[in-house]
């Protein structure tokens, strides 16, 4: 098997045994990216020289018998919403096109310490807002299974690069499904860990109470390897948990005995694609065959999850994105043009004697803010900011924002109750397989409704994983979502691994366009 076709675990064994060097591995992935990525746009930027230098250093250390980190020289792609010192971190936005962070995110430090080789930064929906990676200032990412389809989002580049074998491991972020849904669309394994399991320090915030960094890989075993490197307490993130991190790789090979699985009745309702439904039912049978007991459960408030999510996430986003105002970093609109426009408006106002009516024109500073933000942000980001400002504004905050926080508690309580009965909740990751590029871009609400099965895990702060469980007739992957209580990533990985021992959906690879 060629290097790029291998799983991360296989590569890791080869690296450790000295059969192959990190430089060779890194170079073959870089070659593969350079050969194919112009057709997929999975990456926004590559780290060619730095990656090879890092790989060389790891090889040197290994050769001289010095310690090598847990990732042992495996290449890792990082979503471009995670800060990398000295390397642009764009968030898929014109606003941060030239932003070079003066610091590394905690997960980037951890990856470096674990000797993961940073290949480059992956494409994404601008500021992680979107479910299709169509909202990127750096072009649409294409689904490796069908170039005319979206890869899902917002971690579209992160999932597509694993599916296309441009990286064995990839770090994504998930605010409402942004790891799990693209993993499903691209036929790879993607996990959203428990809120607080992985440090958010250096992750450019979309919705701080929902954002979580997680692994995307070919298999559950690979995801466990990467999660091990990412997870752990960080004193720089107040919301980071100090719970000890288990040994995921060791856990993964211990099969779950007496596993109780819950299937959410509400998930099999209106809007669910028949092929997806069938694949998910088949997956449930697989678990039954493995000895799991299956019961029907109800999450009665799940029907409110999308509405709740699309109040809370934009509210937080509207605040988190207030900092992009053209003052301290990032894009600033052309000041000469602003001055010229203002001058014209003033002249017109004087001519029509509008000043006498007391209508005051904005100051140049306010205009600078407005032009900068209108030109720097794409339309979906602007929509969400507007939605969030509205939901938090005077007279509406209690109706929308506060109300949503209350429903959020009800959604969490549903999960708490369900997990008293079952160990895992199983269902579809997304109502449909990947859809054609452009299909939903003009209808935001229909795009939002695609997050129906994923947002509630973020609202409740629990862990979830998406694994491949079949294909549509048109050859598009279908994802199975498993959800576990907070800090039960181990259980998720074990269950996913069990499934992947029995099935081969996760081994299927698309053939790429040259």
């Amino acid at each position: 098997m060629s290097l790029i076709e291998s799983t991360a675990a296989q590569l890791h064994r080869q690296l450790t045994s000295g059969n192959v060097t990190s430089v060779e591995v890194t170079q073959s992935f870089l070659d593969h990216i350079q050969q194919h990525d112009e057709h997929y746009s999975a990456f926004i930027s590559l780290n060619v020289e730095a990656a090879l230098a890092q790989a060389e250093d790891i090889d040197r250390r290994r050769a001289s018998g010095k310690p090598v980190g847990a990732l042992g020289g495996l290449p890792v792609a990082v979503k471009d919403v995670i800060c990398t010192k000295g390397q642009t971190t764009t968030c898929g936005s014109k606003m941060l096109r030239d932003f070079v962070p003066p610091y590394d995110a905690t997960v980037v430090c951890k990856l470096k310490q674990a000797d993961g080789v940073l290949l480059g930064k992956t494409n994404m929906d601008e500021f992680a807002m979107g479910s299709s990676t169509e909202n990127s200032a750096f072009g649409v990412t294409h689904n490796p299974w069908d170039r005319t389809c979206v890869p899902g989002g917002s971690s579209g580049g992160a999932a597509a690069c694993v599916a296309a074998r441009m990286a064995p491991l990839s770090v994504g972020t998930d605010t409402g499904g942004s790891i799990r849904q693209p993993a499903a669309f691209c036929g790879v394994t993607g996990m959203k860990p428990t809120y607080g399991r992985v440090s958010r320090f250096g992750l450019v915030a979309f919705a701080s109470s929902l954002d979580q960094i997680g692994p995307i890989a070919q298999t559950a075993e690979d995801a466990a390897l990467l999660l091990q490197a990412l997870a752990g307490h960080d004193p720089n993130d107040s919301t980071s948990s100090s719970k000890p991190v288990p040994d995921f790789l060791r856990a993964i090979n211990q099969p779950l005995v007496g596993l109780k699985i819950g299937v959410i009745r509400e998930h099999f309702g209106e809007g669910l694609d028949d092929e997806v439904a069938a694949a998910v039912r088949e997956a449930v049978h697989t678990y039954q065959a493995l000895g799991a007991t299956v019961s029907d459960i109800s999450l009665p408030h799940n029907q409110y999850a999308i509405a709740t999510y699309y109040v809370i996430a934009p509210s937080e986003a509207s605040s988190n994105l207030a900092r992009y105002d053209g003052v301290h970093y990032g894009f600033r609109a052309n000041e000469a043009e602003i001055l010229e426009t203002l001058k014209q408006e003033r002249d017109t106002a004087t001519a029509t004697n509008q000043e006498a009516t007391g209508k005051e024109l904005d100051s140049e500073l306010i205009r600078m803010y407005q032009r900068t933000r209108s030109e720097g942000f794409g339309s979906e980001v602007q929509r969400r900011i507007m939605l969030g400002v509205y939901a938090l504004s005077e007279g509406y905050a209690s109706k929308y924002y506060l109300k949503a926080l209350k429903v959020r508690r009800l959604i969490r309580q549903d999960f708490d109750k369900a997990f008293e009965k079952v160990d895992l909740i199983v269902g579809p990751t997304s109502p449909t397989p990947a859809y054609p590029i452009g299909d939903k871009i003009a209808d935001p609400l229909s795009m939002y409704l695609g997050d129906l099965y994923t947002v509630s895990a973020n609202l409740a702060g629990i862990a979830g994983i998406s694994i491949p469980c079949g294909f549509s007739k048109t050859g598009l992957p279908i994802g199975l979502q498993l959800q576990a209580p907070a800090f039960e990533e181990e259980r998720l990985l074990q269950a996913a691994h069990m499934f992947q021992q029995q099935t081969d959906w996760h081994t299927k690879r698309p053939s790429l366009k040259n």
Partner: protein
Amino acid sequence: MSLSRKEIEKVSHLARLQLSDPELDAMTAQLANVVEYMETLSGLNTDDVEPLAHASDISNVLADDILKPSLSREEALANAPKRDAECYRVPAVLGD
């Protein structure tokens, strides 16, 4: 209840976004659609429910008051769209 164009204008100002007339129209239509969907929340009785702002139950994360190195001025100002040798520069702040 639907969202009026006047409200959208007010919100765009609060958000420091300058939208053209066609943009305002499109935004009004799209957001009205979404906001209408949000209205489904109103049907749910939440009188006795405490808001949940955060899924984690962590509290009292307090750091020691011990200095750590700051960025150099060059590092701090490196990303500024407009600056001089010492400071960020912006169009005049009015008021004070």
